[in-house]
């Protein structure tokens, strides 16, 4: 038998007497690994699905798109794309938003209209009900998303009105390749033949349409080179190109971000599990003091003894990892359900062996990492303990403890960097966790010190005794406060964030507008306002919207910048921003909820200079690379308008009110081509539906949006996201409970001994129970309140700096949460001590 084998054999034998508490270790690792495997496997499945279906997501090999009809020059360039590719096909699609209604039905709804040429999409199958309708789409026909037909109460065969066009509904579209669930809830689609777009009469001045050409290039073409060659010239014509590879990369990036975020959430569960490992190993070492001392007496080196328990922790960690991998793979089937609105509909879950393998490795690694600290103590157990019970292990020297802490920190950093996709994210994560633990440690130490100095003698006996237990030798105050407080902190942070994000989006019952009419033409304004007034509602001021583009920035034309950037030159300003249409407004006063962060708002009636003033939203100004004093020349439907930035604003986007990147003073834009938005409140849903319907008939180009409905959609999506977050948080809760149980097990012997002594000295079971309850209620109160306070701080920082939004504290939910933590701790503490109440003193003494 070799010496290593001795350690292995001993490690196995040593599990015999402690299987119950070692089960905690296995469970703690299993929960963490389950979270990681489920999340990694899910992310891998999504990636694989995207990979295999990327073509159908795009529907083509190459897409050219523009916000205005292709110019003659653009057309020439586009036709040259197919030169040299035999069998190449092109399908054009024009898409725009329009009000739709079924004739003879009361409801009208804003929909996305896609007017398409035959062939589109080139890849992927469209499923319709009745089947086969897609390829038979003929002039005068329309296909619609099922959701739209439901809202309009329309049936197959009914007549659908879009602007001036009247179309027969031939089928409902069940599944469109590459669809993501959320998409249809926000903008249900109508598919019509290409020529129908003009027949609606809605593509006039001020309309917002997107013009696209989809290319199928079956011959092996070097797409990247083709795109590279044509991009600069097309950019000048404001046409952008998207390829399959780019699309795939974008989706992968987005999915990667989601995966990494979820991965960090999973890592939190694993770290909590790690704390469970640490406390289980610590408890085990405490229970094995005699055994270790005897082994040392019999000639075992400290390395041999440490190896015994390290092998044990590793083995159990691996066992936990295997269980976790099995559990995680099963749970992976649940995640697509939770995230179904955010992933492509054709998603197929599959077992990911990489996820399982990496989960196993991470689990064993974390188990070893967290076992290391408590195992260092093994070397400090004097063999003399075998002779004398009162000999206690020596504390590890500070250098050793420092090294252990360093190893742990480095381990967490490495795992977080892998999971978060970068050292920076990993470092921020590690630093955040480190700070939270440090603060928890400070709070627990302070409480302990305070109790030691000043425990009021006026307290009743059980309270005095229970609280004193928190600072007596061999107490578990720090371990429990750290683990439980950390768990409470994570969960409460989720609570605070939910509260703040939902509050932003929830429309209070107050007099906020709940109906928006937009695309109102100047000559329709009077009529629309009159129609609104006739329902008894008071329309707010009509907000003008003037579409414009940037012509030049600080003297450099954007066309020049775009061409350079398309040719590969690095540009500080993102190309999409230079290409995009700015829907700007003009007004005398600063909008509600806006804050000037630089420069100053114009004074009404000030003499107008040669160039106009403009106020930019702060973030867009940053992206454009301009600040107060810089010059921007705008292209307002062909007319150039020079301007100078005089102020930067911070806008609260989440409010249901129009926000603008660029706002001008009244005057210069009064005569520009423009449309108006009118917001107002109409309490009754029925009144809203009737008004929308009458609007559609009289002003077909005016779009109406029922904000209450949007609100409901947003809330249902958010509640599903909340659910997803909660399910993941449950992993942390489960790990936290195990940690608590582990900490209780660690101090079990001390508590039993004390309880027996108390009972022997005449304490009733009731009194003993109250001592235990007092101790754990105090621990729970400490953990709950520090956790909640930390969460308030973290939540404030995240809301303020990450979401850039106003922060409010959900006081009552947090108080309830802290009370819950306290109750749970006291309950678990009492449950863990029930042995003390059940058995007689003598039984327990004999077992000692």
């Amino acid at each position, binding site marked *: 038998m070799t010496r290593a084998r001795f350690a292995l054999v001993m490690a196995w034998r040593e599990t015999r007497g402690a299987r119950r508490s070692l089960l905690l270790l296995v469970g703690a690792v299993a929960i963490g690994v389950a979270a990681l495997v489920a999340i990694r496997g899910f992310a891998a499945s999504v990636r694989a699905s995207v990979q295999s279906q990327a073509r159908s997501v795009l529907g083509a090999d190459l897409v050219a798109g523009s916000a205005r009809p292709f110019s003659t020059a653009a057309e020439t360039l586009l036709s040259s794309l197919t030169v040299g590719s035999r069998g190449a096909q092109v399908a054009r699609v024009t898409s725009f938003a329009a009000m739709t209604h079924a004739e003879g039905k009361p409801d009208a709804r804003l929909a996305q209209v896609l007017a398409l040429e035959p062939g589109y999409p080139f890849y992927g199958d469209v499923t319709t009900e009745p089947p086969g309708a897609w390829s038979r789409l003929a002039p005068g026909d329309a296909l619609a998303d099922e959701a739209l037909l439901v809202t309009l109460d329309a049936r197959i065969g009914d007549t659908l009105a879009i602007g001036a066009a009247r179309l027969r509904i031939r089928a409902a579209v069940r599944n469109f390749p590459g669809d993501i669930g959320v998409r249809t809830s926000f903008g249900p689609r109508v598919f019509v033949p290409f020529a129908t777009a003009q027949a609606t009469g809605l593509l006039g001045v001020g309309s917002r349409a997107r013009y696209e050409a989809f290319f199928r290039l079956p011959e092996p073409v070097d797409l990247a080179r083709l795109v590279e060659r044509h991009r600069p010239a097309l950019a000048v014509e404001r046409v952008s190109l998207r390829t399959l590879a780019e699309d795939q990369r974008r989706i992968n990036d987005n999915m990667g971000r989601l995966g990494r975020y979820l991965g960090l959430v999973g890592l939190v569960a694993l770290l909590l599990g790690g704390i469970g490992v640490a406390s289980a190993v610590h408890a085990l070492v405490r229970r094995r003091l005699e055994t270790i001392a005897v082994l040392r007496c*019999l000639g075992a080196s400290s390395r041999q003894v440490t190896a015994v328990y390290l092998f044990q922790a590793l083995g159990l960690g691996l066992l936990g990892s295997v269980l976790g991998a099995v559990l995680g793979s099963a749970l992976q089937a649940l995640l697509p359900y939770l995230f179904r609105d955010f992933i492509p509909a054709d998603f197929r879950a599959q077992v990911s062996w990489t996820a399982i393998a990496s989960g196993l490795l991470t689990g064993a690694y974390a188990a070893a990492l967290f076992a290391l600290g408590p195992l260092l103590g093994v070397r400090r157990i004097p063999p003399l303990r075998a*002779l004398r019970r009162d000999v206690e292990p020596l504390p590890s020297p500070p250098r050793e403890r420092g090294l252990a802490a360093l190893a742990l920190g480095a381990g967490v950093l490495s795992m977080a960097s892998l999971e978060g996709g970068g050292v920076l994210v990993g470092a921020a994560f590690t630093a955040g966790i480190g700070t939270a633990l440090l603060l928890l440690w400070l709070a627990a130490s302070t409480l302990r010190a305070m109790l030691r100095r000043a425990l009021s003698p006026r307290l009743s006996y059980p309270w005095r005794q229970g609280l004193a237990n928190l600072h007596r030798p061999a107490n578990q105050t720090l371990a429990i406060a750290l683990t439980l407080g950390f768990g409470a902190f994570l969960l409460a942070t989720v609570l605070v964030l939910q509260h703040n994000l939902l509050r932003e989006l929830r429309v209070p019952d107050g007099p906020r507008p709940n109906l928006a009419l937009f695309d109102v033409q100047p000559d329709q304004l009077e009529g629309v306002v009159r129609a609104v007034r006739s329902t008894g509602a008071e329309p707010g001021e009509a907000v003008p919207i003037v579409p414009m583009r940037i012509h030049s920035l600080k003297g450099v034309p954007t066309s020049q910048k775009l061409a350079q950037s398309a040719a590969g030159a690095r540009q500080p300003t993102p190309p999409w921003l230079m290409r995009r249409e700015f829907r700007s407004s003009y007004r005398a006063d600063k909008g509600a909820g806006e804050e000037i962060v630089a420069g100053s708002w114009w004074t009404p009636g000030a003499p107008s200079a040669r160039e106009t003033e403009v106020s930019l939203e702060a973030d867009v100004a940053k992206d454009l690379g301009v600040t107060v004093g810089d010059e921007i020349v705008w292209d307002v439907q062909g007319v150039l308008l020079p301007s100078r930035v005089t102020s930067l604003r911070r806008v609260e986007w989440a409010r249901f009110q129009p926000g603008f990147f660029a706002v001008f003073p009244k005057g210069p834009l009064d005569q520009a081509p423009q449309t108006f938005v009118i917001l107002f409140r109409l309490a009754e849903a029925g009144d809203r539906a009737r008004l929308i319907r009458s609007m559609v008939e009289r002003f077909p180009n005016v779009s109406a949006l029922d904000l209450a409905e949007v609100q409901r959609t947003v809330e249902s999506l958010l509640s599903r996201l909340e659910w997803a977050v909660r399910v993941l948080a449950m992993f942390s809760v489960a790990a936290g409970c195990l940690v608590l149980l582990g900490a209780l097990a660690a101090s079990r012997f001390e508590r039993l001994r004390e309880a027996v002594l108390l009972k022997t000295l005449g304490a009733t079971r009731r009194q003993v129970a109250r001592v235990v309850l007092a101790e754990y209620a105090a621990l729970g109160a400490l953990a709950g309140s520090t956790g909640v306070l930390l969460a308030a701080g973290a939540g404030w920082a995240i809301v303020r700096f990450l979401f850039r939004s106003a922060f409010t504290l959900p006081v009552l939910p947090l108080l309830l949460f802290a009370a819950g933590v306290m109750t749970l701790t006291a309950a678990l503490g009492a449950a863990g001590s029930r042995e003390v109440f059940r058995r007689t003193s003598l039984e327990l003494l004999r077992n000692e």
Partner: protein
Amino acid sequence: MILCEKLGQTYLSGGRELPVLQDINFTLAAGGFLAIVGPSGSGKSTLLGLLAGLDRPRSGRVVIDGQDLGALDEDARARLRGEKVGFVFQSFQLIPTLTAKENVQVPLELRGQGGEARAEELLARVGLQDRAGHYPAQLSGGEQQRVALARAFSSRPRLLFADEPTGNLDAATGATVIDLMVELNRESGATLVLVTHDPELAQRARRVIRLQGGRVVSDATAAVS
């Protein structure tokens, strides 16, 4: 075999150093049988711990088989114990998670040997061949101490330390255990150091060192029987 020179030990108590052993000097030849006696708190167990290298002395030195324990680090001392020393404790100190046989095997396994046959032989020698698969909790006190004896002799130690081996046993069982121990010791020819407060037990030793207040008050060698 054992050389003990000007040995002294102190313990910290309430921030003050409390002397528990002062100026202990003796030598013990190989094959000797020494009993260390004295009232509770006289420093017997402390002395035993120092002789076995379980603790470092405050002053003086212990030399075992020509090896100065003071020159060895913690692990080297453990290796020395593994090679040369056997232990019998007052509270038996069997490892609760191991069966009787596995307990006896431990010293051999630590040296990288299997020792199954040796363990069975020794268990038979102490009359527990039928209890080999039992855990300590399933054995009586006397049986546990016999297993401990088997463990102490399993690695054929040159030196055996016994700390109040009968302290937790009734008189009759204690006598059996002592008989067995003395017999095994005679067979193996090991040096035996026994700590006890039982004068009757001490009489069986060839040499008795009496401690009081941490000092040697008498050192008597009995006539060879």
